[in-house]
């Protein structure tokens, strides 16, 4: 009997020609091996009856869609790879511009943040006062021409901060009942968290560092605030005195 593995290789035509000739001559004298070879051929025919007639059309469509995705990903990778420095540069410029505008453009703030503007006024500078009326002129210049300081109210301190995005003018006034701070917030467009002062619609109430505060808009829209450790009515009375 010829080796079975060799018979399979013969059936598959996987032997060198001289070995095929040798085996064929042996097969003529070996009916058992011949029957085995016939059986191998029959098995091969049987296996060939397994056709690849599966419905693969839907899967083919899905595969093409997947290949489209692969192509898209490759295109993006290629673009990013080629222009990486440019994209990084653009991001850097965008961040720098964002930072610049964030610092310099007017924005809205919560009333609780107003104290922070004053606290962060470092280095605060006191403008040079050249004569006795300079404080009053500056007072009117900052708060508006309608403001006039009466005799019973003293300006005890003046502060100005020119830090971009946080420009503030500050006056500390005293009428004998304690200090009231008046600020002009040049870089803030809107203060949130306020409610209307019921006795005078020009003012809005809020708190600065826990102290009652009245907010109002200067004629040109700049937001001003007066606060101190006293009731809203007392602050309002002082503002009325100042603006008479």
């Amino acid at each position, binding site marked *: 009997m010829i080796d079975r593995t060799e018979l*399979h290789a013969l059936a598959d035509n996987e032997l060198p020609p001289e070995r095929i000739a040798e085996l064929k001559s042996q097969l003529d004298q070996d009916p058992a091996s011949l029957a085995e070879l016939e059986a191998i051929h*029959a098995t091969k025919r*049987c296996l060939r009856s*397994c056709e*690849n*007639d*599966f419905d693969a059309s839907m899967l083919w469509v899905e595969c093409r869609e997947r290949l489209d995705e692969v192509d898209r990903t490759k295109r993006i990778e290629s673009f990013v790879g080629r222009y990486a420095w440019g994209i990084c540069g653009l991001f850097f410029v965008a961040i720098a511009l964002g930072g610049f505008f964030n610092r310099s453009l007017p924005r809205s703030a919560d009333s609780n943040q107003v104290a922070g503007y004053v606290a962060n006024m470092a280095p605060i500078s006191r403008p040079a006062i050249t004569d006795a009326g300079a404080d009053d002129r500056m007072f009117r210049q900052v708060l508006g021409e309608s403001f006039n300081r009466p005799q019973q109210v003293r300006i005890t301190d003046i502060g100005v901060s020119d830090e971009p995005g946080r420009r503030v003018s500050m006056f500390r006034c005293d009428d004998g009942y304690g200090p009231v701070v008046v600020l002009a917030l040049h870089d803030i467009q809107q203060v949130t968290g306020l409610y209307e002062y019921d006795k005078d619609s020009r003012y809005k109430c809020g708190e600065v560092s826990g102290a009652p505060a009245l907010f109002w808009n200067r004629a040109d829209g700049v937001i001003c605030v007066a606060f101190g450790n006293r009731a809203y009515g007392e602050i309002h009375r002082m503002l009325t005195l100042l603006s008479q």
Partner: protein
Amino acid sequence: MLFGRRNQREAFERQAEKVFPSLLGTALRLTRSREEAEDLTMEAMVRAYEAFERFDGSNFKAWMLRIITNLYINRYRQKQRGPHLGSLEDENVLEPVGSEEEIPDRILFDNIVGAEVERALSQVPEDFRIAVVLSDIEELSYQEIADITDVPIGTVRSRIARGRSILRRLLAEYAVKEGIIKQGAKE
């Protein structure tokens, strides 16, 4: 660059479309599950497309079958490590039971085709099944199968011989059970 890629895609699709049913068929015969076969085929297609630049242009079908078989061996066999799928060390599956001379092959194989063969094939242990499928259904040479499965050509030869013997035994058992032939019948 853009046109190069488009041409490459067209060339790949042209060749892949021809062998696609074969790929799915092989995947089905390897995994024995439609869902897993579709996953395997899809992944093989993507891998092949990504590596198409490195294809030497000789035998696309053998190249694709190599990818799909390697994927199956690396991924699905690991996943299915739990259940025993048979191996070369499994002595029970090495030889067919009974004398092959007693099985009237012509009667047997004239009456069993298609679905029954597929069912019997799915019971053949994995290593043998891969070799038999690639040889007798996909009609690859021993050398191509050796390259695909990464084993020596002698091992391929032995696996094909044993795989076919097991298949014959299974088909004979089926034929006896269904009354296509009587046990011990002679031609």
